[in-house]
């Protein structure tokens, strides 16, 4: 492997995605995100001087909500609740793996 083949990226802090990037990654219109943000259904997102920034956790949350709404016609509040529960499940499973290890 030559040194020049190695890609060096920029490391982004936890809050890294813009509204447009989030929308593209979730295959939704930015308006869908704004509607859900206004309803406070997407945690891990913050508005700095009127500009939204999204963390990796917000991305997973929004993707799950989007899938639940699309696959099951879930109302946004129910999709958000389910995404919260799945997040909780992830955290508990990670702890369980720690206890087993």
């Amino acid at each position: 492997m030559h040194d020049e083949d190695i890609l060096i990226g920029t490391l982004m802090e936890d809050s890294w995605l813009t509204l447009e990037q989030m929308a593209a990654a979730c295959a939704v219109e930015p308006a869908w995100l704004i509607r859900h943000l206004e309803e406070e259904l997407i945690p891990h997102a913050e508005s700095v001087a009127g500009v939204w920034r999204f963390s990796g956790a917000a991305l997973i949350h929004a993707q799950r909500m989007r899938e639940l709404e699309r696959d099951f016609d879930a109302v946004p509040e129910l999709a958000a609740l389910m995404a919260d529960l799945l997040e909780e499940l992830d955290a508990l499973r990670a702890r369980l793996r720690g206890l087993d290890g």
Partner: protein
Amino acid sequence: MQFRDYYEVLGVPRDATADNIKKAFRKLARKYHPDVSKEKDAEAQMKDLNEAYAVLSDTEKRAAYDQLGKGYQPGQDFRPPPDWDAGFEFSGHGYSPNEAAGFSDFFEQIFGQAHARRGSVPAQGEDHHAKVLLELEDAFSGATRQISLRTPKMDTQGRVTLESRTLNVKIPRGIKAGQVIRLAGQGAPGIGGGVPAGDLLLEVKFKPHPRFRVEGRDLFLKLPVAPWEAALGAVVSVDLPGGAVKVRIPQGAQSGRQLRVRGKGIPGEPPGDLMLTIEVMLPPADTPRAREFYEQMAKEFAFDPRQRR
């Protein structure tokens, strides 16, 4: 390329109504939901379901698929006739780039071409997203990792195909799960001359480690100690990916008690902490001498662990 029978995937007849297709999909989507399913191939099944539903739930795509698939059996070798999709117009399929990348070559061959034609010319190539699975050790020392990705590419005829490519990416020391590495210009190429390519955003995940649990930059670990180390206090050595550290066990430590060693988790600004859960391990009473020790302890200690203290 093999023909895929999307009706068979969803378990519905060819003349199923849109409502029945939706019902069948939901039933199976619940069964194979990767977060909760107990089926061992849930993730692969869910990909197939999503792909089948992306086609059969869309009137335009379903009509095109029905026309194209006449006379084909599942698994049969399939070649779409040239310009078969003339007269069809497809709108977006509503699946994220991550999901769509999991769709089969069959799907890409049929509907990928149609995607390439729609939409206005973007100012810049799209950003691509991918997940990269790292070893915990990579966060301690930094590393260069080979990452293989499947990327949709457009050929000269405007067709989209999935292309595999391998990148060598430098992983910086101190990286956390959920963090993102942005590789400028490694996303989709810009369309037209002088239009810059998009970026590639790599989301970092760690493979589960047999000894450590990671939260942010904090490392959680069980620390087995001997009864005398716990009772009298001791300095013990703990092996970490970045090298061993010495930790003081306080006198009178009990099983389950947590020790925080500041700054000895994953390095970074600020570095994480090492969180040790004390686990007192008893030596086996498997020799007469060992039994004698335990019997003597039983006599000497007025100790009832079940009595509330």
